[in-house]
């Protein structure tokens, strides 16, 4: 077995559902070992189908998947042993306590009860759920349930952890706590694949990002290269006092959203220094400045819109 095998290699993966819906149109995707990989796309783009096929929850129509060099068709047991899944929906038995849920999952992966017991304690403690180990899962808060699914996915210590919208619908505190946890897991050597609707999340966590839309991968590159493709960023300036009538910002598209809030579009070739110089010359004092939207979000919208205008051939 090669030690340099990719964590995941997807070749020409396609999926057509029985009702004729084409979910994937031959996607190729490689994820390097140790990467924190973001899989982004609008609703119905094919993200969950891709994850479903990787984790054997969905039958593929065509293509090949290798996980750490192991062909999922030829040796599914060996490939599946390397994968941990945190699904989007709560899919544990709501009438069982966390300890039993995690212990059972360990058993399904062939882990002896004594080792399973140790690991269950380790991961429930790590997720802050040890005190709740005997509470019926139904009684846990939404955040606890999400952490329980992460503990369950980690109990067999997979080399590849796949998370499908792990922070969907959770408050910002929990979202940030989950981010820290995922960074920690990745730093420990686990390859992480994350799908998310929160582009801020992807920008913050992922080192490599693929954008999937209408069953095709329309972008797959490292985050820095991806963000470099962003042509125009919009900044919001909060002004100390109302902007003077006839405010001039030569070469910059701008608009006032209210008397003291100014939006300015800045292209990659232009500098922000010139904006500040011009505002200072016109006695406009800036109190604060921020991005109107997350940079990745702007790029994402741009790319998906561009893809939507392309004909959908087969």
């Amino acid at each position: 077995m090669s030690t340099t095998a990719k964590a995941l290699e997807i070749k020409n993966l396609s999926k057509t559902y029985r009702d004729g819906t084409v979910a994937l149109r031959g996607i190729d995707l490689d994820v390097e070992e140790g990467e924190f990989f973001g899989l982004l796309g609008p609703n119905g783009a094919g993200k969950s189908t891709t994850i479903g096929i990787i984790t054997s929850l969905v039958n593929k129509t065509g293509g090949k998947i290798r996980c750490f060099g192991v062909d999922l068709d030829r040796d599914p047991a060996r490939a599946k042993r390397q994968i941990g899944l945190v699904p989007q929906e709560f899919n544990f038995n709501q009438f069982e306590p966390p300890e039993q849920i995690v212990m059972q999952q360990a058993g399904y992966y062939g882990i002896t009860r004594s080792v399973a017991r140790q690991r269950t304690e380790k991961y429930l403690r790590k997720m802050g759920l040890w005190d709740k180990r005997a509470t019926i899962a139904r009684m846990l808060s939404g955040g606890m349930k999400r952490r329980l699914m992460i503990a369950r996915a980690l109990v067999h210590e997979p080399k590849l952890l796949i998370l499908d919208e792990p922070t969907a619908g959770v408050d910002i505190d929990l979202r940030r706590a989950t981010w820290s946890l995922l960074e920690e897991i990745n730093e420990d050597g686990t390859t992480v694949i994350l799908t998310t609707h929160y582009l801020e999340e992807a920008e913050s966590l992922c080192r490599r990002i693929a954008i999937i839309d209408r069953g095709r991968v329309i972008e797959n590159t490292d985050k820095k290269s991806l963000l470099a493709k962003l042509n125009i960023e919009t900044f919001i300036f909060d002004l100390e006092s109302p902007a003077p009538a006839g405010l001039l910002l030569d070469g910059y598209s701008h608009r006032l959203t209210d008397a003291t809030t100014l939006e300015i579009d800045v292209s990659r070739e232009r500098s922000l220094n010139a904006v500040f110089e011009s505002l200072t010359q016109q006695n406009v004092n800036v109190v604060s400045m921020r991005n109107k939207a997350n940079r990745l979000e702007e790029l994402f919208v741009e790319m998906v819109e561009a893809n939507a205008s392309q004909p959908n051939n087969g």
Partner: protein
Amino acid sequence: MPSNTFADVSLSSRLRSNLIGFQTIVIKEVTRLLRIWPQTIVPPVITTMLYFIIFGKVIGSRLGEMGGVPYMEFIVPGLVMMSVINSSYQNVVSSFFSSKFQRNVEEILISPMHNAVVLLGYMAGGIARAMVIGTIVLLVSLFFVDTLSIYSIPITFSVAVLTATLFSIAGFINALLARKFDDIAIVPTFVLTPLTYLGGVFYSITLLPQPWETVSRFNPIVYMVSAFRSGIMKDRLDPTMIDINLGFAFAVIILFIVGLFSLTLWMLDRGVGLRA
């Protein structure tokens, strides 16, 4: 740090891993069976007691003997079989469909366990419930019959286990194909119950006029009830009241088990009812 390595993939380690997976499903199923005992154990026992009281005591006392044994004693094997059939079927169909419905079956589908192990695990749960209830019903019958001696414990036990095995698989198939809770009630109500009632529980099919006797021989439950009755009372039952030859009955039951087991594995491999 992820500890999984590719080194530990020998056949023996895979077997050990699958054995642990099997144990896990069995423990889960037995825990469930015991946790919800008012739903899993009490109702079939009460139902069977009612059969003993109504068909055995009230009506049976007027019938006298059948095949040389008191009618109450004659129906004991059939009633035990009826509870074994229903319990094994219901246990697997409700447990596996609930897992499907709540989507926690995904825990199993993403795991490296072999499909045969998953099936065997659920079957073991169904067999366990059937054996518990079958034993309780047999013990309850002692309140209604003067004596109940068993002709052959190995025959009786093996027929009960094989029958529970067969109907556990049938329940699993029903759960795979079911899309809503109504679908898991249709087969027990419209197929299993009529076949059981017409399967010689309360009478010997040799008493039926033609063509009904011949038609009854196409009912697989006849073979199980007949074999189980032979196991309990072959030594004292009129040979003309033994519906099916014991060896033939075993062969038919085993043939059904092999056929349904293969079919279920084929369905699992293709993800029928589980994977889009």
